[in-house]
């Protein structure tokens, strides 16, 4: 026998109370854990996706929409821009690297992106099989795209118009898969990559047996459009001048991924704060519930405590017994809560993955979760203090003599 086993015996003697307290704590801790995990992973993922992209130049419209559609690939693009203007901008001396993106089609929900090899290089993508695209209608699949669709090198597929599944299919002109990338942990994993010309070719609705090379050679200049240009500055000073230059002197719009994602998190942050506050209220309610349960239990247990004193226990030992009971309950609640939080995160992750969205996983550990355990233990300790003090103060001689 020891204090821990004695505490457990008392917890088991009040199963309903114990379960109620565990559920309350686990819900609170689980919600906070879910928020921590999801928030951290999404922020990290967005950070990786946006890293090294200082500016995006695209069609005028909502800057956030531009960033969401071209950097994170989650929203519809704002429109297209003439290739000539983009080329002019790419030549600007403040621009170190400019990557064109042409969007418009998707394959089973995965976006088809017309771009250059620089795009793969930017995210440090490596080939798992095959080679990068060279000619129109050759495609390279991101790791997740390949895994989900089951396509590999040598496979063929047709794109459908728009980004949702079930759009109008460009049935006559299949892409040929020439390569598959290794996982990068970035947006690259969920894309289909090809060159810009492929996107043009599919969208001018050529005749059935047209040769891409011939058709593209006759493309009018006003048909040569891209969706956006991802830009890396040559010097830090460019941050001060280039966006203003683009916004004021061209038909283009410049948006900063860092600024727009910070703005997005500020907006989402309110919702996350509300959820977090709600979860903390749950934890506090659990603390109160543990307190009330223990306080009432002390009333029933006056005799037991007096008997333990009679048998030789010191006041301190009884105080430790009561505190241990409260803290053990709180810790058990925290551990169950963390398990629950990870399961919930995994469930949310599975839902996101099914929608071809950047996913989260419950199989990750954050050191901040240790703070949650400490928080729960603290709540248990505080909830146990007054009952422990009552145990400490029990007048044994009087209590033993009472009925």
């Amino acid at each position, binding site marked *: *026998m*020891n204090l821990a086993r*004695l505490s457990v*015996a*008392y917890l*088991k*003697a009040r199963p309903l109370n114990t379960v109620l307290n565990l559920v309350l704590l686990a819900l609170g801790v689980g919600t906070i854990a879910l928020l921590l995990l999801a928030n951290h992973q999404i922020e990290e993922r967005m950070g990786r996706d946006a890293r090294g992209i200082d500016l995006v130049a695209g069609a005028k419209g909502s800057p956030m929409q531009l960033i969401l559609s071209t950097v994170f690939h989650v929203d519809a693009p704002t429109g297209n821009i003439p290739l000539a203007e983009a080329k002019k901008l790419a030549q600007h001396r403040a621009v170190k690297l400019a990557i064109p993106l042409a969007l418009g089609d998707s394959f089973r929900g995965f976006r088809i992106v017309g771009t250059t090899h620089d795009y793969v290089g930017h995210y440090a993508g490596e080939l798992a099989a095959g080679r990068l695209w060279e000619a129109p209608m050759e495609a390279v699949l991101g790791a997740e795209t390949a895994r989900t669709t089951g396509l590999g090198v040598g496979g063929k597929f047709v794109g459908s118009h728009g980004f949702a599944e079930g759009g109008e299919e460009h049935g006559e002109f299949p892409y040929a898969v020439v390569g598959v990338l290794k996982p990068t942990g970035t947006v690259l994993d969920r894309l289909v990559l090809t060159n810009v010309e492929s996107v043009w070719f599919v969208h001018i609705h050529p005749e059935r047996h047209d040769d891409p090379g011939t058709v593209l050679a006759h493309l009018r200049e006003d048909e040569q459009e891209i969706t956006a240009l991802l830009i890396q500055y040559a010097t830090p000073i460019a941050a001060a001048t280039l966006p203003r230059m683009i916004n004021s002197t061209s038909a283009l719009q410049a948006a900063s991924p860092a600024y727009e994602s910070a703005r997005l998190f500020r907006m989402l942050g309110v919702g996350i704060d509300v959820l977090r506050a709600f979860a903390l209220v749950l934890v506090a309610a659990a603390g109160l519930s543990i307190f009330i349960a223990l306080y009432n239990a002390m009333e029933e247990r006056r*005799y*037991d405590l*007096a*008997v*333990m*004193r*009679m*048998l*030789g*226990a*010191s*006041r*301190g*030992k009884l105080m430790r017994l009561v505190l241990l009971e409260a803290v053990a309950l709180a810790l058990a609640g925290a551990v169950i809560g963390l398990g629950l939080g990870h399961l919930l995160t995994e469930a949310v992750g599975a839902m996101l993955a099914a929608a071809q969205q950047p996913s989260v996983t419950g199989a990750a550990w954050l050191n901040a979760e240790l703070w949650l355990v400490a928080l729960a233990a603290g709540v248990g300790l505080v909830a146990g203090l007054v009952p422990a003090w009552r145990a400490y103060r029990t007048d*044994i*001689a009087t209590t*033993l*003599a*009472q*009925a």
Partner: protein
Amino acid sequence: MIAVESLRHRYGATTVLALDSWRAAAGEHCLVLGASGSGKSTLLAIVAGLLRPSEGRVEVAGEDLGRLSGPALDRFRGRHIGFVPQKLHLIANLDVEANLVLAQFMAGVAQDRARVREVLAAVGLANRLGAKPAQLSHGQAQRVAVARAVVNRPQVILADEPTSNLDDAHCAATLELLESQAAACGATLVIATHDQRTKSRFATRLELAGAPA
């Protein structure tokens, strides 16, 4: 074994116990008699170190209880004194065996299950080790309380009104049990009672007259 000098205990202005001198030798079996309110329970609580007297000196097994600090007094009580309270106060969540192990644990002595079983066998409960107190008859619960008091081989056993709710047969059996168990550990036995049936069995008696004005 027990020596009491000039003992007074008061609650507020009311003196509930006044005892000028009382001694009980090692191994002696002694009755403390008196009407209810005469201070029997108070005397037992003071001798057990559960209560500090307002005045006076109490020596048990060679220790002056007044000189022991709180935790030291608790330790002393756990190791040297077996107490059978009037309401038995067994721990309802623990089975019979665990109730006795608890006595060893709380006294801070080694947890010796063989000793626990030996004592339970001696009081005739070898087959009720796993029973919860609520499943026991009153007589059985009384025997568990006696076993709990003797499991740590105390030098003094104190029993507060052990026979008050028992019929004649059980009364005799309980007294016999207390005496035999006290004899088995060579302990001094002190029984506080107002039960006339117990008087005949004990030669040594202390009559408490109740509180003097």
